């Protein structure tokens, strides 16, 4: 019996058949797009700021927050991740690890910091989007998947944390590292990271007031329930 896998063969044949029909826009087109976005974004940001100043921010998507930071800016703790200049979806979606969550419970108004009187009402949504996760880089922003701008109101604070676990020999998971952030109007995005050593376990980004769990029992793959806005589950690499 042949060791050839007909499924792999069929897919490889498809790739061969598709190749002549692909017509990549090219590197120059990508550079032009990026240049255009860099030119347009400050203008758009200025328009949004002007509208906000005029009291019209209620009608502007992403109101209440500053425009997304230029994605080309060097990474720093407050920069925004690749915002979608074309208003298309940022990395995510149900099948992807990035999952937006309606933050019914996550957005919390800071006591003693009510909305300024006379200012247009900024609707607190408390939504968090995980823009990017790699081995060393985690970017979390206060916005919805499709929004090019952050959305967080003055005085609003959204508590969010990431947590990474490692496996124990019995299949349970213990806390490896975590970091808690307060997303605010002044700091609507965080860029952080961790390098996990050991038997890497599950990773969560959680929004709201939950405590960071020290351990997760074996078999529990929904450690934070609906408060987890991002989950990556790993089988025990040392098991």
């Amino acid at each position, binding site marked *: 019996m042949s060791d050839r*896998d*007909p*499924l*792999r063969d*069929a*897919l*490889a*044949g*498809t*790739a061969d*058949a*598709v*190749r*002549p*029909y*692909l*017509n*990549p*826009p*090219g*590197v120059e*087109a*990508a*550079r032009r*797009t*990026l240049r255009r*976005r860099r030119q347009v974004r400050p203008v758009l940001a200025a328009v949004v700021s002007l509208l906000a100043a005029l009291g019209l921010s209620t009608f502007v998507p992403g109101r209440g927050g500053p425009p997304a930071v230029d*994605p*080309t800016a*060097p*990474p720093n703790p407050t920069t925004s991740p*690749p915002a979608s200049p*074309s*208003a*298309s*979806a*940022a*990395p*995510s*979606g*149900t*099948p*992807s*690890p*990035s*999952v937006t969550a309606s933050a019914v419970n996550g957005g919390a108004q800071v006591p003693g910091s009510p909305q300024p009187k006379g200012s247009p009402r900024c609707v607190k949504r408390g939504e968090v989007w995980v823009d*990017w996760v*790699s081995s*060393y*880089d985690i970017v979390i922003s206060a916005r919805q*998947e*499709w929004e090019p701008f952050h959305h967080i109101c003055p005085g609003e604070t959204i508590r969010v944390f990431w947590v990474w676990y490692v496996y124990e020999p019995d299949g349970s998971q213990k806390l490896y590292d975590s970091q808690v952030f307060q997303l605010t109007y002044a700091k609507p995005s965080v860029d952080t990271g961790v390098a996990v050593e050991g038997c890497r376990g599950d990773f969560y980004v959680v929004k709201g007031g939950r405590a960071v769990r020290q351990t997760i029992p074996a078999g529990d*793959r929904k450690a934070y329930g609906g408060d987890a806005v*991002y*989950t*990556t*589950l*790993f*089988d025990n*690499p040392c098991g």
Partner: protein
Amino acid sequence: MTGHRDFAEFYGAVFHRLATSLYVHTRDLAEAQDVVQEAMVRALAHWPRIRDDQPEAWVRRTAWNLATSRWRRLRRGFELVTRGRIEETTAGPEPDRVAIVAALALLPERQRQAVILHYLEDLPVSQVAEIIGVAEGTVKSWLHRARTTLAEQLSGYRAEEADRV
């Protein structure tokens, strides 16, 4: 400039592979190329930062996330309706050459994604699991089920071959 040359080389090496995968997933050549190009633009914006940290993985994840984004699908549907555009506007291979694509379309979306990433892009199960955001065991289960389904759909594809994961 070294960075520019690096990106151009990267683009040339990666675009076709990713666009092919996304085509198999979406069955839409234009859409597949759109999402890969968008991912490339974003990669270019972050190039100094990601060039040394698995840029292909970055672009792959971004492109897949774009392709599977509910918002993008809605927007895309709206564009097709408002422009009166139909999918046949982009030339593609003859249907009999891509029968596997039609068969894959019968799979649930994440099963299809797992099949493409594993069997077309040759990514290990662990990496597929990481991209999709599920446990490795889940991916293995999906791959097995997908092979069983495909065995029923494709002639010349024997049932016992469904056990190869």
